[in-house]
């Protein structure tokens, strides 16, 4: 065979189960990470609280923004397959600095998303168990659930992404179906005739009945922004923040590039389809809630409300299942990012080792799961309200995701310019998405509470410290950042080198 300069005989990310996952599994990974069932049940209320009848517009704006980000991610996903996802992409456009920042944002974002999913299960699941079996303490049940879930999720993640994908697909389909049925049933039973047509105003008044949900408003870090029922451009704009938070994680299929069959087709398709499907689900949920104020009052306020109606039990079961799938999906992504960083020489080499039989980053799973589960268990046992744990984790996590998305959007046109494939469309997409994301991040930080600001400052300090340390210890590895599943000699039908 002809030796072609620059072509390796072995992929730098060898060890994963290469080119084995079907498109449906790739799609399941992205959908499960966004946890649409959980988000459908909580986010529309938050958006309605600030945007009133403009809530669907908030979701529409957020969906368009997510679509632009998805287009920027697709620029990379059509051209390279990486286990590190967005940070490996960013490396090809912004170099080591951008890639490092994006890697930190992804580790923080996905780590906190796993923890938030654990705490969501503990919160909703504990409350559900306590209601169905009176006498069971909610906190104890919640902690036990976290431990059981952590073990299950770790086993599924090690057993391989094919099994994990199947599990996530079934759970997600069931929980979305459950919540749609409950929402529609409540809408039909509680909406008085004539209300649907002009339901907006009534919907806003219904929101006052769900103030119990304010515990979740940490989700976007916008608690207190905007008055309830504020209708108009301002309200719609403020509503975009929590709406955007409902989409985070839609990019996670990008980390399956190495394992997906035909990744250049299936990964960008999975990311785009996830953005589209979740957008439709959120819009439907919002419209139903606006049309049927009763639905909001009776069904969705589950943890705070004490009643045991069939709808609220089913809803909670769906939400818990959705968070469980989200924990597994986000963990899949997190360990692949760590695996990729370890293969670059920027994280302990042990994290880059894969399970001999299942071909998954098993060491990374064994290291991360206990730590993340401990965060939630300790937080809950220390007496912090489960809603506060959940909200706190997600608000920091969401900002990390926004940062990662911003970096990849800025990187897209620079990457294309470097390989000589820049088009005007990508420049426009990238500029629009970057400006909107940067503006969103600025607004979130400006309205952040002290706790969030302190956390962000601490993360910045730790991140910068890590950068300085790595530059001293692993300079060459840092400069060469961005390993991905390169074309190897075995992939090329070699005719002759130029």
């Amino acid at each position, binding site marked *: 065979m*002809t030796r*072609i300069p*620059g*072509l*390796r*005989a072995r992929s730098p990310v060898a060890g994963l189960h290469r080119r*084995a996952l079907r498109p449906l599994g790739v799609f399941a990974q992205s959908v499960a990470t966004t946890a649409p069932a959980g988000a459908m049940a909580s986010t529309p209320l938050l958006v309605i609280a600030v945007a009133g009848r403009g809530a669907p517009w908030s979701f529409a704006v957020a969906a368009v923004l997510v679509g632009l980000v998805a287009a920027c991610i697709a620029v990379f996903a*059509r*051209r*390279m397959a990486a286990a590190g996802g967005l940070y490996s992409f960013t490396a*090809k456009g912004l170099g080591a600095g951008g890639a490092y920042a994006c890697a930190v944002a992804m580790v923080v974002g996905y780590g906190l998303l796993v923890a938030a999913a654990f705490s969501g299960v503990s919160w909703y699941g504990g409350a559900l168990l306590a209601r169905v079996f009176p006498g069971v303490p909610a906190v104890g049940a919640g902690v036990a659930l976290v431990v059981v879930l952590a073990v299950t999720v770790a086993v599924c993640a090690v057993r391989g992404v094919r099994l994990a994908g199947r599990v996530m697909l079934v759970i997600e389909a069931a929980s979305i179906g459950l919540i749609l049925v409950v929402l529609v049933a409540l809408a039909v039973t509680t909406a008085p005739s004539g209300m649907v047509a002009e339901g907006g105003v009534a919907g806003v008044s219904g929101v006052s009945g769900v103030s119990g949900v304010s515990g979740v408003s940490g989700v976007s870090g916008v608690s207190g922004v905007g008055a309830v029922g504020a209708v108009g451009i301002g309200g719609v704009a403020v509503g975009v923040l929590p709406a955007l938070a409902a989409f985070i994680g839609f990019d996670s299929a990008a980390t399956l590039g190495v394992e997906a069959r*035909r990744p*250049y*087709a299936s990964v960008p*398709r999975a990311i*785009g389809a996830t953005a589209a499907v979740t957008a439709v689900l959120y819009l439907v949920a919002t419209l139903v809630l606006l049309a049927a104020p009763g639905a909001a009052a009776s069904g969705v306020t589950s943890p705070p409300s004490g009643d045991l109606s069939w709808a609220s039990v089913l809803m909670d079961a769906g939400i818990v299942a959705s968070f469980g799938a989200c924990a597994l999906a986000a963990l899949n992504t997190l360990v692949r990012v760590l695996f990729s960083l370890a293969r670059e020489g920027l994280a302990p080499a042990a994290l880059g080792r894969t399970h001999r039989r299942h071909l998954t980053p098993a060491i990374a799973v064994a290291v991360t799961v206990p730590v993340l589960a401990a965060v939630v268990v300790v937080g809950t046992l220390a007496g912090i309200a489960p809603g506060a744990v959940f909200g706190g984790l997600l608000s920091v996590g969401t900002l990390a995701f926004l940062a990662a998305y911003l970096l990849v959007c800025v990187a897209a046109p620079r*990457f294309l310019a*470097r*390989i*000589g*494939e820049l*088009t005007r*469309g990508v420049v426009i997409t990238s500029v629009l998405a970057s400006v909107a994301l940067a503006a969103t991040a600025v607004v979130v930080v400006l309205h952040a509470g002290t706790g969030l600001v302190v956390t962000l400052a601490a993360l910045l300090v730790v991140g910068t410290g890590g950068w300085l340390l790595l530059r001293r210890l692993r300079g060459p590895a840092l400069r060469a950042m961005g390993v991905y599943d*390169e*074309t190897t000699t*075995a*992939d*090329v*039908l*070699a*005719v*002759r*080198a*130029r």
Partner: protein
Amino acid sequence: MTSSSISGRQPQAVRSALAILEEVAAAGVGITAKEISTALRIPPATTYRLLNLLVAEEYLVRLPDLGGFALGRRSANLAPSSVAAPTAARQVMRRLRDRVRWGAHLVAFDRHRLTFLDPDPDHPPTDADELSRHPHASGLGRLLLAEHGLPDGPLTRLTPDTVVDRDELARRLDEVRETGLARQCGEFHATLGCLAVAVRAPDDRRLVAGLALTGPAERVAAPNTELVDLLHAHAGDLAPLLA
């Protein structure tokens, strides 16, 4: 989605895609998207979209710099080359045929296709395309499947003995991986069977060819320890000549 915008009703897109394939084949490894666009006078945006499509379908690959292109392995399916075994390999095959009474065949593997390098002239083998279509029923095909995994489609029952149960077949493939021997008795032709072993590249153990003996089904079913050892020895001799 950009990929669905190309349908059979857009002959120009299909024509351009084929022209791009031809251009990459002619220019050799490392041609860039811009160069292709200029050479073929296809608008850049269209070129990039078609290139991404051809890469997604694995007819083309991007080189590690991400800017250059080369033909992917899948392109080989478009023009099956007539491969011939080196003289030294044919001598090994002649030695083998002198020592056994059954048909001895040498095939080359390229992804999911097999081509006869040196079929036994005295025992003409089954058509190579027929073998490629039903890899689950032949010894040589099972060597391929043991390497790449089971195909997605349904498994055809060629004789009453053909294994068409996926779990059963997966167990047989595990055996192939363990013993290095693929055995098939009356599953392709009711009266014939075969013993097949892999020829692997000495350096990276890549599967390059398969060596098979075909004979009466009931005799193939016997342990045939000596024959199997003979096959393995000759496969070892062939490896440095073929890889």
